[in-house]
């Protein structure tokens, strides 16, 4: 099998995406209700945030708008996992029912093909919400704006999103080994909600855990420091792009290992 270039994969992705959108559009009511549901989720998250922090000028040395910045950052960085990797949620059913075998017979990368099958449009609302929050907080804090800043922001956002993607991949892949893996995936999915808090509120032990064992601090806290507090950027922040890439690579390997081990159900 010859190696296929990135252009080939992009073209394939667009084709599959178009099919997926067409099939989604045939369930229009479901699509609209799901989108409204997603907007509801974001609004409620924002309202909770507002209720908690409106009466306090600062939290552990973090001003209201800095917290808002973190919140916006976390929303944006968990969007890719929502949009591009939503098919992970169906992996369990596919593996049990035996449908997963169909993916194994395609002459393209298995992981790529599986994930490309579903594109979740709902995530785009969240993206808009997150970007809006980020810009609002950015202006309110009075951070300077330059092309370099924007570039930095983009790079760090993209690599931060890899962390959540990696966590979800690994959690979804657990279905190759254990039964009832929905709970594992659900557990990891809840991490998203914890990413928006500055890690300094935790005690040292949990700071360590949330940095190295369950790397949720890399979803928003460390990468956002590069833009938010450019005067004192810790080493871990600069390393966060590498961390993101490394985690993604490992999760990809786990996922593929599980998939290769898969032997079908015989049906």
């Amino acid at each position, binding site marked *: 099998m010859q190696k296929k270039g990135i252009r080939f994969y992009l073209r394939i992705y667009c084709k599959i995406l178009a099919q997926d959108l067409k099939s989604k559009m045939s369930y229009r009511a*479901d699509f609209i209700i799901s989108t409204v*549901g997603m907007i509801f989720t974001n609004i409620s998250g924002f309202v909770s945030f507002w209720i908690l922090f409106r009466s306090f*000028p600062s*939290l*552990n040395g973090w001003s209201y708008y800095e917290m808002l910045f973190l919140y916006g950052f976390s929303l944006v960085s968990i969007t890719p996992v929502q949009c591009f990797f939503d098919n992970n949620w169906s992996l369990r059913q596919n593996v049990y029912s035996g449908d997963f075998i169909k993916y194994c017979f395609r002459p393209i990368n298995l992981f790529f093909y599986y994930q490309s099958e579903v594109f979740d449009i709902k995530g785009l609302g969240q993206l808009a919400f997150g970007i809006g929050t980020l810009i609002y907080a950015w202006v309110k804090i009075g951070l300077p704006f330059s092309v370099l800043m924007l570039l930095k922001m983009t790079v760090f956002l993209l690599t931060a999103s890899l962390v959540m993607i990696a966590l979800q991949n690994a959690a979804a892949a657990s279905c190759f080994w254990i039964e009832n893996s929905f*709970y594992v995936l659900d*557990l990891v999915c809840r991490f998203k909600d914890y990413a928006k808090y500055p890690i300094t509120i935790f005690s040292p032990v949990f700071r360590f855990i949330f940095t190295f064992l369950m790397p949720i601090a890399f979803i928003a806290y460390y990468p956002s420091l590069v833009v938010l507090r450019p005067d004192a950027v810790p080493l871990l922040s600069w390393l966060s792009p590498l961390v993101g890439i490394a985690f993604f690579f490992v999760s990809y390997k786990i996922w593929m290992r599980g998939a290769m081990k898969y032997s079908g159900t015989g049906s």
Partner: protein
Amino acid sequence: MKLKKYITLTRAGIIEALQFRLSFVVMVIGNLLYLIVVYFLWKAIYASAGTDVVNGMTFNDTLIYLVLATALFNFMEMYTVWEIGRNIQSGKIVLDLLKPMEYRKYLFWSYSGTFVTQFFLTFLPTFIVVSVVTHGAVPLGINLLYFVISVVMAVSINYSIDFLVGTICLYTESIWGINIMKQVIVLLLSGATIPLAFFPEPLRSAMYYLPFQSIYNAPLSLLLDGDPQPQTVLTTLGMQAMWCIFMLLLSKGFWKVSLRQITVNGG
């Protein structure tokens, strides 16, 4: 024997729930993580507030409230909407409708086994740990009795809301969107994620007129009130009883009307 058929369903539920031990372990880990985050978050909030009492609640009060709210959530989350939605999509609902028992009752009682296991495996241990850790900050007196009565009604209201929302699936065939909307609204407006006392004034008063606060806020405030005034207890329980009956009739009526709508593919 009228009761016997219900007890049989409960027993089957207990046996089924005990089969899934891994999911139980993962759930406990998930809750622990959530509680750790909540603990540090509120600690930081109280530290920056500068006072011991915020909105009439001490740090201990808030923590007990939130811990027990989580325990109650696990206890009461029945995934009814998912169950109904899936049954509609797969057509299995036809078989359930043929059973010599009302569908509403059948669904409830087939889930009731999980109530029993959840109560002993999560709620009771959590409650004991909380009482021990906080050195008796949870008053143990007549309020426990009120709490139990209140929880029974809360379960009923919660189930009625779930069933009502599940019935909507008959029309929309959308599960995810409908369920997420319900969950977001119930969790936020019932005071499960943030105690009602922290909500800003016009919103808080409005919430007392909605059924949702009867699910989490009512039982928990009864439990935490060491010196209950007969008047408060009566209003709270009376309000719950009213919602209990109203939601019961509403969900039953809506189901009856909607049943004519049903179209099942295959089955």
